[in-house]
């Protein structure tokens, strides 16, 4: 039996509007050294008529459109991975499956474990393919997360302050199959670490609560212990030597710099100069897209993979190490291989250009959106979306190939192509 499995195709959607993070930090009175540590440039802001369904569909649509009808018919599982759900029972995947026009013989469900969700979904799909129960089948795994945490009340903006500059929005669609053009997963090469901790949570639909210090500590513990579990399973694994590049879940760039330093100190007692050079060489390419859309939660590690393929130098097949962490908490270190062909395919998607086309919000426009008067709240029964909240942002949609939310009728979300 073939052991080839992994990501056949990947596409990201970084939204329709963005905000300059330096401008935001200045506006909020945050000091500039703190801004520099974030390693952030822009963040995607979801418009009121964009929701986790539109983000997911808009990420997957170009990928699905590029498949033949016969290939599309082999998508037998659609997994949405999110901490931004819109219903306790019905999963986002049912809407996504519908708007992508996929066949009915398909498993549809949703996975939640904070920012770890995407990796949980990926491994679910990888093991479905490896099981061989449906030879030739494909699975579509889509991470989709947006952050609208300032909506609860006036105090919420203050409470959210520590993560506001880095909270983004975005979706990553991945087609998982036995022809892994983008990333060939190393089957069986993974390590986990999880334990109960109250570091960051979403206790209500529009609220986030957390302790930044505790979250960082849990992330560092998990990076070390998940990697050690990986090394226990994989003969000869060496964090410094085995991986040409690394992609870590990235709440903000400074955090993965801390985690990388933690690992290099714990495993090798490496000197500071070596650690800095190693970070610049092996991890900084993965920041390429994340620093333009912000933390995309479940998708962040895969946004890192896409950024790495866009920016790194890949002249021969090489191994990549990936680390995923979700608050609460669960984590995983796993690996796979990429080739110059992976890079060629990824670069052909024009992902940077699509981020360039986002509407750049002014601070005033951002503040209007932050108040959330036009946003559909969790549990809304009936409403019609105001498409003209920021007219210039809406005008940036053209071509009829992106989904937007029109109305909610008896809890059912109704969408159209814009």
């Amino acid at each position: 039996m073939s052991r080839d499995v992994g990501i056949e195709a990947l596409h990201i959607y970084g939204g329709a509007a963005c905000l300059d993070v330096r401008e935001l930090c200045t506006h909020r009175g945050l000091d500039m050294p703190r801004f520099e540590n974030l390693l952030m440039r822009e963040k995607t802001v979801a418009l009121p008529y964009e929701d986790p369904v539109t983000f997911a569909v808009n990420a997957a649509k170009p990928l699905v459109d590029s498949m033949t009808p016969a290939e599309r018919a082999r998508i037998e599982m659609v997994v949405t991975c999110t901490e931004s759900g819109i219903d306790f029972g019905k999963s986002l995947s049912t809407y996504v499956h519908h708007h992508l026009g996929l066949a009915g013989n398909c498993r549809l469900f949703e996975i939640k474990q904070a920012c770890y969700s995407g990796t949980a979904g990926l491994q679910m799909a990888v093991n479905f393919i490896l099981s061989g129960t449906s030879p030739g089948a494909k699975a579509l795994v889509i991470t989709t997360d947006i952050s609208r945490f300032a909506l609860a009340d006036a105090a919420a903006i203050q409470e959210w302050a520590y993560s506001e500059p880095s909270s983004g929005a975005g979706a990553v669609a991945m087609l998982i199959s036995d022809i892994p053009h983008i990333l060939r997963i190393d089957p069986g090469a993974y390590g986990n670490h999880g334990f109960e901790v109250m570091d960051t949570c979403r206790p209500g639909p529009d609220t986030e609560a957390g302790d930044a210090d505790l979250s960082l500590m849990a992330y560092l513990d998990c990076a070390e212990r998940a990697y050690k579990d990986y090394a226990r399973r994989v003969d000869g694994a060496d964090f410094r030597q085995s991986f040409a590049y690394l992609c870590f879940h990235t709440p903000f760039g400074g955090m993965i710099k801390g985690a990388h330093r933690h690992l290099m100190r714990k495993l090798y007692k490496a000197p500071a100069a070596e650690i800095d050079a190693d970070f610049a060489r092996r991890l900084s390419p993965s920041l390429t897209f994340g620093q333009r859309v912000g933390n995309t939660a479940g998708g962040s590690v895969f946004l890192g993979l896409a950024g790495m393929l866009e920016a790194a130098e890949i002249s021969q097949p090489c191994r990549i190490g990936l680390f995923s962490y979700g608050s609460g908490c669960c984590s995983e270190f796993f690996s796979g291989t990429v080739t110059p062909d992976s890079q060629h395919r990824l670069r052909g998607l024009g992902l940077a250009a699509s981020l360039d086309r986002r509407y750049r919000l002014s601070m005033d426009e951002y503040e209007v959106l932050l108040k959330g008067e036009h946003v559909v709240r969790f549990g809304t029964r009936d409403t019609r979306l105001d498409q003209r909240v920021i007219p210039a942002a809406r005008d940036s949609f053209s071509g009829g190939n992106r989904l937007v939310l029109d109305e909610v009728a008896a809890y059912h979300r109704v969408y159209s192509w814009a």
Partner: protein
Amino acid sequence: MDRDAVLALLIAQLRDVVPDLAEKPIIGTDSMAELGVDSIERSEILMNTLEALALDLPMVHLHGPRNLGELADLLHGKL
């Protein structure tokens, strides 16, 4: 190593990671956050201190102290 020696070590590691605080008097009732040490720097100071004390503890076990003195008490209790 007694508790005051742990505190002295902690402060030395803090000055090493944040050279801007090299000359500033620092005592046990000071908190790192109030001294302007950011969360990434705080984690680095903790990691370096654990290494110097030859302690291998999960970082989350060090969460809770409100100032350097309380942190020194906690670390001293783990020796």
